[in-house]
C-alpha cells in the first residue's frame, strides 16, 4: 500500500513541477527583477508590500480592478440567467433540433480567441450585422466585452446545469409532484437545489475565465474598458513597469485564486453518485403556448449568442473578393495550417500526459487541483516575459513554444478527467483488486476505459483552444513557425482592402480547421454534452 502511495506522488510531481517551472518560476523571476531594478520613475520607494496595498489608492488602477470584477460578475450572472432555463428545457424536453442545439452551443468554447472577437464584432459591433441597429457609442462599450464573454462561456453553464438536472432522481421529483407541488414549485424546491452545486461550480469557472481572460478583453474591451489583465499586459510589454505589474498581478491572483478554490471545493462536493432512476425527457405538448415560448426562447438564445458570431465570420469570408480567396489558398496558408496543427498536436501529447497524471493525484486533495488550474490564473504576459529572464538561450527553440502551448492547455485536460475520476465508484477498483488484479491492471482495465471518454473530451477541448491561442502571440516567433493566428495578424498589420479580406478568409479557415480537429477527436460523441461523467459506456446509461 505504501508503495502505491509513493507511485502516486511521483506521478503527480511531474505536472506539478512543469507548472512550477513554466508558470510560477518565470513570474517570480520577473517580480524579482522588477524589485531589484531601481524604478525608472523613482516613485515607488516604500517597498513592495506597501506599494501592493497602495494600488487601491490609485484611482485608475482601482477602477480597472473594479471593472474587471464587475464585467466578470455581470457576465457570470447573465450566463446563469440565460443558461439555466435553457439547460432545464434541454434536460427535460425532447424537442426537434435538441441534439443539434446542444452540439452547436459547444462550438464557441473551441473557437480561437481572435476569431471569436472578430465574430462578436461582426455581429454585435457598431457596424455589425445586428449591432448597427443599436445606438453604440463608437468610443467603445462595456456590453461588447460582456457579449464576448457570454459567447464563450454560456455553454459551460448550460452543460453543467444540464448534467445537474439530468442526475435528478425521478422518484424524488415524482414524490414532490404527488404531494401536490406545482411544476414551478417542484423546480424551485427540488430540481434547482439538486442542480445548484453543479451550477455554482460552473459559475466559478466562468467567473475565472472572464476575470483572467486576456485576449478577448484586449480585443473587445478597447481602451475605455481595459481590464486589469490588459493593464498588466501594457505595463509589462510596453512600459516595462515590472513592479507595478507584479503588484497588480498579485491582486488578480488573489481574486482568481478565490474563484478557483471555490471551484475545486465545489467540484469535490458535486461528485454525486450516479443514479439509476433519472428523469426521462418527455415530448412537449406543441399546442401549449408556454411550451412554444420556451422552445422559441431556447432557440433564440442558442442561435443569437452561440451561433450568430460564427455565421457572421463565414458571411464576411464569403463576401471577400476572389483575389483574397485565391491569395488565402496559397502555399503560405497551407504552411500555416501545417504549423498550427503540428504545434498543437505536439503540445497536446504533453498536455494530455501531464493533465491526466495531475488529475489522478488531484483526486485526493483540493489544493492539488488548484495548482493544476494555475495556468488559467496567471497573466500569460508575465510568463512570456519571465521566461526571457529565466531561459533566454532557449527562447527561440521550438521546445519552449510547445511547452507554453501545453501549459495553457493543461487545465482543459485536467478538468474533465478529474470530474470523471470523481464520479468513479471506488468499489469497482477495489473489487478488481480483491480479485487479484495488480494496481496497474486495475488502472488499465477498469479505470482507464471508464475515464477514456472524459480524456478524449478534454483532449478535444485542449486541441481546439490551442489552435488559436491568442496568448501565444506574446512569445517569440520565427517566420518558419507562422501559424494561422500570426498570419491573420500579419494581414491586419498592413493597409489595403485585400488584407482585411484575407484576414476574414483566414479566420474562416482557422475556424474550419478548429472544428474539423474537434470533430476528429470528439466527433460523434458530442451528444455526451449532457452527461460529462459517462457516455455510452456507462453501466447506467
Amino acid at each position, binding site marked *: 500500500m505504501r508503495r502505491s502511495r509513493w507511485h502516486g506522488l511521483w506521478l503527480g510531481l511531474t505536472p506539478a513541477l512543469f507548472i512550477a517551472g513554466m508558470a510560477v518560476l518565470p513570474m517570480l523571476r520577473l517580480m524579482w*527583477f522588477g524589485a531589484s531594478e531601481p524604478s*525608472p*520613475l523613482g516613485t515607488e520607494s516604500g517597498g513592495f508590500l506597501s506599494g501592493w496595498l497602495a494600488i487601491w489608492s490609485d484611482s*485608475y488602477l482601482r477602477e480597472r480592478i473594479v471593472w474587471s470584477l464587475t464585467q466578470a460578475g455581470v457576465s457570470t450572472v447573465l450566463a446563469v440567467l440565460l443558461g439555466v432555463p435553457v439547460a432545464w428545457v434541454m434536460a427535460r424536453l425532447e424537442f426537434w433540433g435538441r441534439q443539434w442545439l446542444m452540439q452547436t452551443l459547444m462550438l464557441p468554447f473551441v473557437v480561437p480567441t481572435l476569431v471569436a472577437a472578430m465574430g462578436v*464584432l461582426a455581429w454585435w*459591433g*457598431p*457596424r455589425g450585422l445586428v449591432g448597427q441597429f443599436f445606438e453604440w457609442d*463608437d*468610443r467603445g462599450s462595456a456590453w461588447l466585452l460582456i457579449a464576448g464573454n457570454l459567447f464563450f462561456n454560456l455553454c459551460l453553464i448550460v452543460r453543467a446545469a444540464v448534467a445537474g438536472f439530468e442526475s435528478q432522481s425521478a422518484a424524488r421529483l415524482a414524490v414532490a409532484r404527488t404531494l401536490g407541488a406545482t411544476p414551478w414549485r417542484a423546480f424551485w424546491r427540488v430540481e434547482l437545489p439538486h442542480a445548484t452545486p453543479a451550477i455554482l461550480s460552473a459559475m466559478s469557472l466562468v467567473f475565472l475565465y472572464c476575470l483572467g481572460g486576456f485576449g478577448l478583453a*484586449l480585443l473587445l474591451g*478597447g*481602451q*475605455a474598458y481595459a481590464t486589469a489583465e490588459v493593464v498588466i499586459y*501594457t505595463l*509589462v*510589454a*510596453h*512600459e*516595462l513597469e515590472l513592479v507595478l505589474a507584479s503588484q497588480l498581478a498579485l491582486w488578480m491572483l488573489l481574486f482568481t485564486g478565490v474563484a478557483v478554490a471555490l471551484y475545486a471545493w465545489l467540484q469535490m462536493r458535486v461528485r454525486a453518485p450516479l443514479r439509476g432512476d433519472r428523469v426521462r425527457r418527455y415530448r412537449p405538448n406543441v399546442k401549449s403556448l408556454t411550451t412554444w415560448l420556451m422552445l422559441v426562447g431556447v432557440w433564440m438564445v442558442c442561435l443569437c449568442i452561440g451561433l450568430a458570431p460564427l455565421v457572421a465570420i463565414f458571411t464576411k469570408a464569403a463576401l471577400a*473578393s476572389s*483575389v*483574397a480567396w485565391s491569395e488565402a489558398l496559397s502555399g503560405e496558408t497551407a504552411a500555416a495550417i501545417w504549423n498550427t496543427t*503540428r504545434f498543437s*498536436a*505536439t503540445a497536446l*501529447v504533453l498536455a494530455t500526459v501531464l493533465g491526466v497524471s495531475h488529475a489522478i493525484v488531484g483526486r485526493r486533495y483540493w489544493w492539488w487541483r488548484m495548482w493544476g488550474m494555475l495556468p488559467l490564473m496567471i497573466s500569460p504576459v508575465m510568463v512570456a*516575459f519571465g521566461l*526571457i*529572464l529565466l531561459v*533566454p*538561450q532557449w*527562447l*527561440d*527553440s*521550438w*521546445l519552449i513554444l510547445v511547452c507554453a502551448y501545453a501549459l495553457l492547455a493543461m487545465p482543459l485536460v485536467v478538468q474533465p478527467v478529474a470530474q470523471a475520476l470523481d464520479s468513479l465508484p471506488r468499489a469497482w477498483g477495489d473489487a478488481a483488486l480483491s480479485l487479484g488484479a495488480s494496481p496497474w491492471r486495475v488502472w488499465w482495465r477498469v479505470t482507464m476505459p471508464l475515464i477514456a471518454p472524459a480524456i478524449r473530451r478534454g483532449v478535444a477541448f485542449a486541441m481546439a483552444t490551442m489552435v488559436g491561442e491568442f496568448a501565444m*502571440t*506574446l512569445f*517569440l*516567433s*520565427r*517566420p518558419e513557425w507562422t501559424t494561422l493566428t500570426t498570419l491573420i*495578424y*500579419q494581414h*491586419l*498589420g*498592413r*493597409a*489595403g*482592402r*485585400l*488584407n*482585411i*479580406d484575407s*484576414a476574414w478568409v483566414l479566420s474562416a479557415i482557422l475556424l474550419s480547421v478548429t472544428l474539423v480537429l474537434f470533430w476528429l477527436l470528439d466527433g460523434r460523441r458530442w451528444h455526451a454534452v449532457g452527461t460529462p461523467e459517462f457516455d455510452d459506456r456507462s453501466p447506467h446509461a
Partner: protein
Amino acid sequence: MRRHFLLTTALVGLLFQPLFAGAADARTTLRVVTHSSFDLPKDLIATFEAEKKVTLRLIKAGDAGEMLNKLILSKETPIADVVFGIDNAMLPRARREGLLQPLPAETAALSLSPNVSDVDPQASAASDWLPIDFGYVTINIDKAWFAENKLALPTSLDQLAEPEYAKLLVVENPATSSTGLAFLTATVQAKGESAWTWWRALRAGGVKVSNSWSDAYYKDFTRNGGSRPMVVSYLTSPAAEVFYSDKPVNVSPTANLNLPGGVYAQIEGLSLLTGGAKDAATRQAAVDFMLFMRSAAVQKALQTTMWMWPASATVAREPVMTFAGKAPTARAVDAAVLDRDARNWVRRFNQEVVR
C-alpha cells in the same frame, strides 16, 4: 494495436523533426531579432543564405517597443546577434542599456540618402546603428467620405481640435502603439506644453483612442466600415491601399493629411547586439547581413513589404510609392528629449485623454 503504435511513433517523429533538422549543417547561423512587421521576399533571403553560406535565424519579438523591452530583459544572455527595427527615437534608451556594439568598419562606405540625414542628422551619424529605411506617421483620410459629406479638410492642428473635426478622428494609444506614440510626440514637439490643452480640446470634441493601429484602421476607419474618416496611420498607407486593392485602381481611396506639427519622421536601423556575434564567422555573417540589408535588391523590395522608404541613396522608388505623395518636411524629435520625457508624455496622455 501495434500498427497504431508504429503510426503514432512515425507521426511524433515527424512532429519533432524540426528539433533535430539542421544539426548536420555546417553553415554559420546568424540570429536576427526583428519587430513583427519585418518582411522580405523569401527568394531574396534564400539567395543571400546560399551565396554567403549563412543560415538566417529570424526571431520576431512583437512590435518595436515590445522588442526593445525583451532585449533589455535578456541583455545578459542576448537572444540574437543582430537586431533590426530599433528606430531613431528608441536609440538613446538602447544605448543607455548597453545593448549596442560599434558597427563593423565595412559599413562605413555605404551611401546614405540625404533624405535620411535631413530627417535626423544626429542619429544618421551614429556609429552603432545603421539606417535601413525611413517613413512617416501622419493622418490618413477617407476621400470618399469627405467628398460625400462635402466637408473641407482641416488645415491645422488647431482646426483639427474643433468639435466638428475631433469627432471624426481616431488615434492610437501611445502606451500600446508606436503610431500613437509617434503622433503624440509630433504634437508635443510642435506645441510644447500647450499640446496638452490641445489634446484636452480633442478629447472634449470626441476623438476616439484605440489600442493599436490595426484596431484603428480596420475597426474605426470609415474606409473599412468604421465611423471615423480620419485615422493616425502611415504616409505609405494610401500606396498600400492601391497595391493591396481587390481590383486594379489608379487612384488611392485614401490620402494623407500632412498637418504642420502632425507628422512624425522615423528611421529604422540595424545594430550588432552586445554579447552577440562573438566568433569571427558569425561576425562576418553579421557584416554580410548588414550589407545585404542595404543592397539594391532589399532596398527595393522593402518598399512594398514593410512599406518604408529606402535609406540607400542610389535606390529607385517603387512606382506604387508615388501614391504616398512627396516626403513631408517633418524632422525627427531630439532623441535625448524623447528618452527623458516620453514616459511622462504617455502617462499624461492617459490621464488627460483616456481616463
